[in-house]
């Protein structure tokens, strides 16, 4: 039993913490997220130079060969600094799908460019009617002489407005809710018949809805096996989840710490409001929440070498449930304890809360994962 980090992991954590602590102010974040891209391309290049874009990829593919622990350490710091960067979309979703689902020159070319910071990606797996049900896919990919023809609509593609390439899930067989019959396709954003509607989420990040009208693709644009794309997509999302929750933990930790600092400085009735027991206990609850999430994060990271097992799935569901529930509570408490300042746009608190809310709604919220957990824990 060991919860310590290797020297390499410690170095990764230190370098990320140094970046967030010294080079990335809240003002800069606000500036970055306000750009059309939603991030600073120079900053992305800096991440490439630091090797962070290579973290989750195999060494034989030019990656760092990092595991779930490495990813957790990096993402937690990103959360602490509220870093605006398409790491989830380009690296954890697009890049990892490319690594797992393509081969040969195509894979080498795409991964080299992702790792070098020269390619942006996005994954279009959501549809309006599906909520969180990954299998619910109505976008169709019908066989043609040259390959497939795609028609349908996808929603809320992270990094969609910027992505050079997109991976789209579409149905090559089966009924709309079937797990089998889903395939993944690699598309250029300039493909004829592909129409993007850009918008932003509440945390400022740019996303896009996709409309596909008789989009022609060739068979070599298939990512992963035909009809079995869902398993691949699920695997990549499962691998990203601890990273997403680590980022959420970073956000929660910042919210807790900044609230403590504020109540120590803010005076009312002639004393620091942090001296009031009624507020102290609420901050203890915030701190406890962070410790609980860290514990479940370690738990999920420790079973990450057994992907797809019931044990690991339970751990992932539990992590997402509690991150959602405690994250919401910590966010609301941070605003409340900052009083009037908490509801200003000027203060960083509201922005941390909004990003936290977005993360908690991605890949299934707390209620959704709790129901998934129930199917494992309470079989009927």
């Amino acid at each position, binding site marked *: *039993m060991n*919860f310590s980090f290797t020297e390499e992991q410690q170095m990764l954590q230190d370098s990320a913490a140094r970046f967030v602590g010294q080079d990335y102010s809240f003002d800069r974040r606000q500036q970055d997220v306000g750009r059309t891209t939603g991030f600073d391309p120079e900053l992305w290049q800096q991440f490439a130079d630091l090797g962070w874009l290579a973290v989750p990829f195999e060494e034989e593919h030019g990656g760092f060969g990092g595991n779930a622990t490495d990813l957790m350490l990096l993402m937690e710091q990103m959360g602490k600094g509220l870093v605006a960067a398409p790491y989830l979309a380009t690296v954890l979703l697009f890049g990892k799908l490319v690594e797992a689902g393509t081969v040969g020159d195509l894979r080498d070319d795409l991964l080299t460019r992702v790792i070098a910071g020269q390619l942006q990606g996005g994954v279009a797996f959501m549809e309006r009617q599906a909520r969180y049900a990954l299998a619910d896919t109505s976008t169709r990919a019908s066989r043609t002489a040259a390959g497939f023809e795609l028609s349908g609509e996808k929603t809320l593609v992270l990094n969609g407005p910027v992505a050079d390439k997109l991976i789209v899930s579409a149905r090559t067989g089966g009924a709309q809710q079937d797990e089998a019959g889903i395939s993944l396709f690699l598309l250029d954003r300039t493909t004829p018949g592909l129409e993007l509607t850009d918008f932003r989420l509440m945390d400022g990040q740019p996303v896009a809805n996709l409309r596909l009208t008789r989009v022609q693709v060739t068979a070599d644009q298939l990512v992963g096996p035909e009809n079995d794309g869902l398993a691949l997509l699920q695997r990549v999302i499962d691998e990203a989840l601890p990273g997403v929750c680590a980022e959420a933990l970073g956000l929660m930790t910042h919210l807790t710490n900044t609230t403590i600092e504020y109540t*120590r400085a803010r005076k009312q009735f002639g004393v620091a409001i942090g001296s009031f027991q009624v507020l102290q206990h609420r901050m203890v609850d915030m*701190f406890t929440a962070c410790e*609980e999430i860290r514990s479940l994060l370690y738990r999920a990271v420790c079973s990450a070498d057994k992907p797809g097992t019931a044990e690991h799935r*339970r751990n992932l569901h539990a992590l997402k449930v509690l991150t959602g529930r405690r994250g919401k509570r910590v966010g609301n408490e941070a605003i409340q304890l900052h009083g009037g300042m908490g509801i200003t746009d000027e203060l960083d608190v509201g922005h941390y809360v909004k990003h936290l809310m977005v993360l908690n709604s991605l890949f299934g919220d707390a209620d959704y994962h709790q*129901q998934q957990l129930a199917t494992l*824990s309470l079989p009927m």
Partner: protein
Amino acid sequence: MDTTLSTTDLEFRDDVRAFFAKAAPEKSQQLINNPDTYKQGVIQWQKQLFEQGWVAPFWPREYGGAGWTVTQSYIYECERVTANAPDVVPFGLKMVGPVIYTYGNDEQKARFLPGILNGNDWWCQGYSEPGAGSDLAALKTRADRDGDDYIVNGSKIWTTYAQYADWIFCLVRTDHSGRPQQGISFLLIDMKTPGITVSPIRSINGVHSLNEVHFDNVRVPLANRIGEEGQGWTYAKSLLAHERTVIARVADSKSRLDRLRELATRELQGGRPMIEDEAFRARFTAIEVDLMALEYMELRVLAAMANNQSPGAESSLLKIRGTEIQQALHELTIELAGVYGGMIAGDSATAADLGHDFGDQARKDFMYGRASTIFGGSNEIQKNIIAKRVLGL
């Protein structure tokens, strides 16, 4: 970062399983479940553990400990719960024993440790007083010097199983000047000493486990004082953190959760088992998730202890969450029993006779379980500790 068990750990787990299979702990557990044979059951089981050399695994080897690693202790605890084997009573083995081997002199170690290990001496804890609960340092029980003795006067309260005890370890006031924490000494007192009376307190679950202990000019030799006079607070405090990690009872709650699942598969409503009820499923999994977090919170504290970091304020976290989860389990269990959660079974009409086999026990557990957020330093006090020591408020 990994929690994979090594080959040595797996072998150890097999040994533990083999021991439990042979030791038939259910025989002792049956005695323990009945208040009339409780003490007999506890001692019977403790003697079996003593013979196996596992009664105080966390003690240093030189005093009779087993030298287990933190992982081994964790494995043992998981297997113990799976085997439905009793836990040891903590007052001697987990509370006063470590104080004696850490702060006591050689004579005290030789005199008291063997009886703690082999179960011949039953210990109880004399900390709280009618006027000193959460504010423990306000204790007033006084010990005044008289030659080679102290004369002890005062009262201790909430003393668990004082009615069975041979010895009591007490915090007493030996000096009345200075801060309340100063002037407290740690005394070991023979319960047979003239002047001690024990009055029972019947609990909310109808059971007598708590007592008030009165001291009326009780003569205690100076030789029964642990360490220096006036340093008792320091000795006691070093123990409290350990006590709180014990209170988390993760393995026990895991077993209760399994039991709850089992009960819900056969508790019917309108022909359908309650395990299919959406509200039940939501409440069950909410507790499950909390418990999964607590389990790793405990492992993290244990791993830190294995690296010789003493459990500090983290143990307060474990105490708070552990007891809240215990209460949530008690609550869901009694509510699963529905109206039958209110029934009282007895000798003439047992639970089985009355047609509901867990309502009576659920009621007892729920009622007595209310104590867990109060004892060992109330959860509100734990929050004060975290606010001050960790958050710097």
